[in-house]
């Protein structure tokens, strides 16, 4: 058998084996969510044969936990930062790449240096600020600090710096102002990088655990990550846990499928080459 394959086809053996390692956990999650059982017992490879599939676990979750509210919370604290990040990255990226003003480089590199500081350092002072402002257990601490991010600005700036100057010069000669140049010339051209910024913001905010864990205190205000984590500790029911995981996984998975090429693009855009 092996002899019949040529060298390049042999490549598929490690690919498939490794692929299985990556796929099996997700397969377990999906199969587990459909099984009606407290704990998986016995050889998992026989589950499919012996157990009956049903959506009972999903029904159980929606009945016993405010799961829909968790998903809505996650959407609120994700969608707003996604769009504001795309907008601010675009306009600030343009300003830092294309506008001349006093202190431009200094301001930009101070902001970049701050990324070095681990976000965990910010959490305690922010907690004090937000509790003074009465923001704890509202959406505000999860949205307001996240409305823009320097990494997104960096991506767009890198992208726009490589664009030829002739582009804007023609527009300026025609009498266009900065707003027109930005909206009509640079914004359309920067669409791929802006989509990248959006996908990263989505994944980052949707999956964040530590921040909402600290800034939300009631069941009703949890985003899906914290809600699911509480479900995982409360339930001892494997099927229910996996059903919760599937529900939280679906939105990320859909975003991933639709915007997959932007993730790859985004990582290559970080300027490592």
């Amino acid at each position, binding site marked *: 058998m092996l002899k019949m394959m040529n060298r*390049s086809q042999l*490549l*598929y053996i*490690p*690919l498939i084996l*490794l692929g299985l*390692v*990556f*796929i099996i*956990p*997700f397969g*377990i*999650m999906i199969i*587990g969510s459909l099984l009606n059982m407290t704990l*998986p017992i016995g*050889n*998992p490879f026989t589950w499919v044969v012996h157990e009956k599939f049903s959506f009972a676990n999903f029904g159980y979750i929606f009945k016993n936990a405010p799961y829909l509210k968790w998903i809505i919370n996650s959407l609120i604290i994700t969608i707003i930062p996604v769009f504001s990040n795309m907008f601010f990255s675009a306009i*600030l990226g343009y*300003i830092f790449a294309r*506008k001349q*003003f006093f202190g431009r480089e200094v*301001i930009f590199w101070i*902001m970049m240096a701050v990324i070095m*500081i*681990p976000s*965990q*350092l*910010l*959490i*305690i*002072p*922010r*907690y004090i*600020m937000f*509790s003074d402002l009465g923001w704890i257990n509202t959406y505000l601490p999860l949205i307001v600090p996240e*409305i*823009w991010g320097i990494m997104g600005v960096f991506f767009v700036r890198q992208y726009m710096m490589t664009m030829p100057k002739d582009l804007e010069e023609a527009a300026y000669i025609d009498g266009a102002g*900065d*707003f027109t140049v930005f909206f009509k010339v640079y914004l359309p051209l920067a669409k791929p990088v802006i989509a990248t910024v959006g996908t990263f913001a989505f*994944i980052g905010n949707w*999956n964040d655990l*530590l921040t909402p*864990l*600290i800034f939300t205190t009631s069941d009703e205000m949890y985003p899906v990550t914290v809600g*699911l*984590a509480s479900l*995982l500790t409360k339930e001892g029911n494997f099927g229910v*846990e996996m059903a*919760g*995981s599937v529900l*939280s*996984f679906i939105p*990320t*998975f859909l975003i*991933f499928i639709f915007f*997959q090429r932007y*993730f*790859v693009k985004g990582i*290559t855009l970080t300027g490592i*080459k």
Partner: protein
Amino acid sequence: MKRHWNKYALVYIFLVPILIHFSIFQLFPILFSFYLTFTNWPVIGEPEFIGLKNWLGLLHDPLAWKAIGNTIMFSIYYIVPTMAVGLILALLINSGKKGTGFFKAVFFLPVVTSFVVVSGIWAWIFKGTDDGFVNMLLHAIGIEPQLFLSDSDQALIVLAGLSIFKVCGSTMIYYYAGLQSMPHELYEAAKIDGAGPWKTFWKITFPLLLPIHFYVAIVTTIGSFQIFDSAFLLTSGGPSNSTITIVYYLYQEGFTSLRLGYASVLAYVLFFIIFVISLIQKKYMGKEVSYK
């Protein structure tokens, strides 16, 4: 005046509000938490200035040293495997054969999935009883069941395994980007000189990837020192504190024990460690690399 406004309108309208936002939510908290390290403040009431007490307390806190030690051990288990697996995956998908795009998506899937989801599955895969997934596999080949997450020697390794699984997809993409930009002529030359694939890899591909190794090493190291989610979700720092990491301990001190001043000290310790690592890596690994 009008001309000036026209020229800088965008800067005033958009940059100024963002600078204010930056000052409130980034700069001020950084300075404020430094002040907090000198106070005792259980959130309610006024902060009490206690000088260096928190900092000195760190020296006599065995749990803090345990957390730092655990985090370093975690990095040892995590950094090199993450880089190696990422590189292997990148080499595999870089061959450009049919269907590699599909595998690229498969390997990247855990990166976009939340730790909470992956941890839920992992909890059962590495369950320390006979009905855990890996234990069932071990049983099938005649190996004793392992305790995994409930064993203080193994728990941290299992968490590292989870993080490698979760993150190596993005390492793969960094390497993939590097491999895609490799100069073709060198490979042609190597082929003419009769170098085999093994030799070509070690003599050409691996050294040419040096800038990527450097970048990935920094990103992975910084990430490893910030590990929290899996320690919180899977082990809650246990068994017998074997998975208490710096950030987990910070969370516990700050938000369970409400010792915000001391937790701020831990946050600064984390910052110093990351800062020093970045400096060292910059000094020793950031050497100029040329393709010529």
